[in-house]
């Protein structure tokens, strides 16, 4: 294994997400976040780390979770768990009375077609809080298609059912599928800039577009923090990948044309540093108790338990300390391969080391953000719906709700900016979000009394616009 330096006028990172921090996710084995972690540790700002998207329906496997399309529910699939915890019976032998169709019972109006984040939270709660997971060792619920005629399934869902059969070895037309929410996408990533035009759009060709706080270092795609804020919409990772790639290129060329000084010594020194670090890791005493795979498994368990769907401050705080302890363990863990040829063990060990800074960013960002926004859900700070039944009281509650919403927006509609502290802990600050083109409004989906709140909100927007209209008319 050799170390080489590649001096360049500009570097563009497009290293994807950091799902491996969570142990098992829908991401590939190469999505360790290692490259962005190195950048962060070298002084690049990392933003919105705490916003991690969890897809509601994925198929748990021994090695990863594989996405199961929501169209399965769209075509009539029913989600359920046995009422008896970890009922040992074959699902086909469990009668309807012993089945808890929890989405249908808890959301009679939407049933299995509740929005993604609600489905994710419910499935997660059923398994973790209520302890009703189908299996003890691997959390999952049933997604049942067996009541739908085979011909219909083959015609409408043939492709996705084939995937289930190929990787699980059972036919979902005969046996209910086992699914569980999975970490799927990291909305956060390296902070990147853009040059704003007079009309509020993007200045094409500006070297600032997609540039991090380090001039000449760019980031695009999932590894940047742009475009999705707190919650990525379906198919929009494609948007950010195509858009950021397209609009980064012209800026990079313009920026590189300005030229820079030759810094050969810097690169030689950097290569030497990495070689020394590599040798130090290879020279660790063998035969220790902890190995990097165990440590990685424990990190994944902690992160999945506290930093996915539901966040609670006591859990986040505890997890932060545990992650720091794991990082200490990592510093002394032994390698099982100290050779210098295709040594996957040392490569994995290094990428594991890079996971801790990002994990701490996620946990600290989540801990400090006391609100619910997009994928970040803290039930202790959720804004409940309207309880009153009397119209006048409902109105008053809605007014208070809107006040609280506006105060919350002023306080929290900001990007979380993380910088790597000298002591290894993240330093968190906040940056305003430009809402001049599209003012924020409440997301009221499924909230009790949402229609009253919506009315109050619309009135407030109309009143706010009036003074300008009067001025224009006269």
């Amino acid at each position, binding site marked *: 294994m050799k170390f080489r330096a590649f001096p360049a006028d500009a570097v563009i990172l497009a290293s994807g997400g950091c799902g491996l921090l969570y142990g098992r996710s829908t991401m*590939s084995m190469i999505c360790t976040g290692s490259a962005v972690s190195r950048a962060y540790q070298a002084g690049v700002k990392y933003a919105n780390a705490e916003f991690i998207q969890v897809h509601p329906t994925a198929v748990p496997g021994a090695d990863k979770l594989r996405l199961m399309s929501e169209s399965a529910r769209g075509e009539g699939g029913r989600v359920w768990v046995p009422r008896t915890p970890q009922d040992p019976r074959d699902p086909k032998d469990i009668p309807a009375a012993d089945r808890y169709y929890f989405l249908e019972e808890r959301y009679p109006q939407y049933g299995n077609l509740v929005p993604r984040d609600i489905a994710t939270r419910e499935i997660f709660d059923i398994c973790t809080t209520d302890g009703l997971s189908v299996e003890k060792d691997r959390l999952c619920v049933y997604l049942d298609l067996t009541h739908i005629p085979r011909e219909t399934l083959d015609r409408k869902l043939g492709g996705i059912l084939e995937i289930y059969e190929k990787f699980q*070895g059972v036919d979902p037309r005969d046996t209910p599928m086992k699914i569980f929410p999975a970490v799927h996408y990291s909305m956060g990533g390296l902070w990147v800039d853009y040059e704003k035009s007079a009309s509020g759009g993007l200045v094409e060709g500006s070297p600032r577009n997609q540039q991090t706080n380090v001039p000449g270092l760019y980031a695009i795609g999932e590894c940047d923090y742009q475009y999705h804020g707190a919650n990525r919409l379906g198919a929009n990772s494609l948007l950010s990948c195509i858009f950021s790639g397209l609009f980064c290129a012209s800026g990079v060329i313009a920026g590189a044309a300005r030229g820079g000084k030759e810094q050969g010594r810097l690169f030689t020194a950097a290569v030497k540093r990495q070689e020394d670090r590599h040798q130090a890791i290879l020279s660790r005493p063998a035969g220790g108790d902890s190995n990097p795979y165990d440590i990685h498994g424990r990190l994944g368990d902690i992160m999945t338990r506290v930093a996915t769907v539901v966040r609670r401050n006591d859990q986040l705080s505890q997890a932060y300390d545990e992650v720091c302890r794991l990082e200490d363990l990592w510093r002394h863990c032994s390698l099982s391969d100290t050779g210098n040829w295709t040594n996957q063990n040392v490569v994995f060990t290094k990428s594991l080391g890079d996971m801790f800074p990002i994990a701490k960013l996620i946990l600290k960002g989540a801990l400090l953000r006391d609100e619910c926004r997009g994928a970040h859900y803290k039930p202790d700070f959720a804004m409940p719906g309207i309880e009153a039944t009397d119209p006048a009281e409902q109105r008053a509650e809605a007014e208070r709700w809107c006040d609280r919403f506006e105060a919350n927006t002023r306080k929290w509609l900001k990007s979380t900016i993380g910088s790597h502290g000298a002591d290894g802990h993240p330093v968190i600050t906040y940056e305003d979000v430009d809402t001049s083109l599209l003012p924020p409004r409440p997301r009221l989906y499924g909230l009790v009394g949402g229609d009253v709140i919506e009315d109050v909100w619309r009135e407030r927007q109309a009143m706010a616009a009036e003074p300008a209209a009067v001025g224009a008319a006269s």
Partner: protein
Amino acid sequence: MIRAVDTSELVADQQAEASPPREIRVRVLRQDAPGEESYWARFTIPYEPNMNVISVLQRIAALAKSHDGRRVAPVAWDCSCLEEVCGSCTMLINGRVRMACSSLVDNLFTESPGEIELRPMTKFPVVRDLCVDRGRLFRSLERVKAWVPVDDSYDHGPGPRISPEEQEDAYPLATCISCGCCMEACPQFNKIELSRREGEADEAFEARKQEAYDKQFLGPHAISQAMLFNGHPTGKMNADERMESLTGQGGIQMCGNAQNCVAVCPKRIPLTRSIARAGRAATVWAIKKFFDR
């Protein structure tokens, strides 16, 4: 070279009971570096339901001990997506070439209860253990220019329209994941392995390898990819160059119609259909060239 192995042990294992196993016995053909001797290594891990060969290898890496308790380096293998899209995890599992991610332990146990055998592909040089060098696979794609050349990044306006029939015909060919299964199975595709000469630079070694590859069979995947791009409205502007490669050294004339390729392709690509079309196109091309002289 493989050292002789004690077969009596293997036979006894095969006679083990077929009821739900408590453990998985794995034997892996390991090799520490290119050109070194290969040797069998044996591992035992606890059985878990729903495992695939990827998770078996992950458990072996975490364990880092052979079946007799000795500390050993983890088995090296390539993988990435774990969903049969990246094409990295090709290997010989119980003697057949397949993807490790979609090879389920429970299914493998119906072939040989309790035991799994893993070997690297035999048609590509071994880098280490189950990792092989597939540079020749990609060189073949270069030889047939398996892409649509784009001159620049300016806006050329909307692309050419493709009918639904053309799309249905082309799409299966586009699902190729460059896994190498077809080459492993092809009797006309043989391993080319060069050793680096004393003091040879990377670039020189690479050039020498490519020179050797260019004389030998392209492989079924490259023939199919050539047909895919020859069928594309823009790609067909380079059809002549692709036909030159397909009828040159190592071209389609080397296919012996064994039809092993289509039998092992994990994406079920109709490779023999592509090869048949390439054959017809080659005939037309040869005649055209004859009259164009």
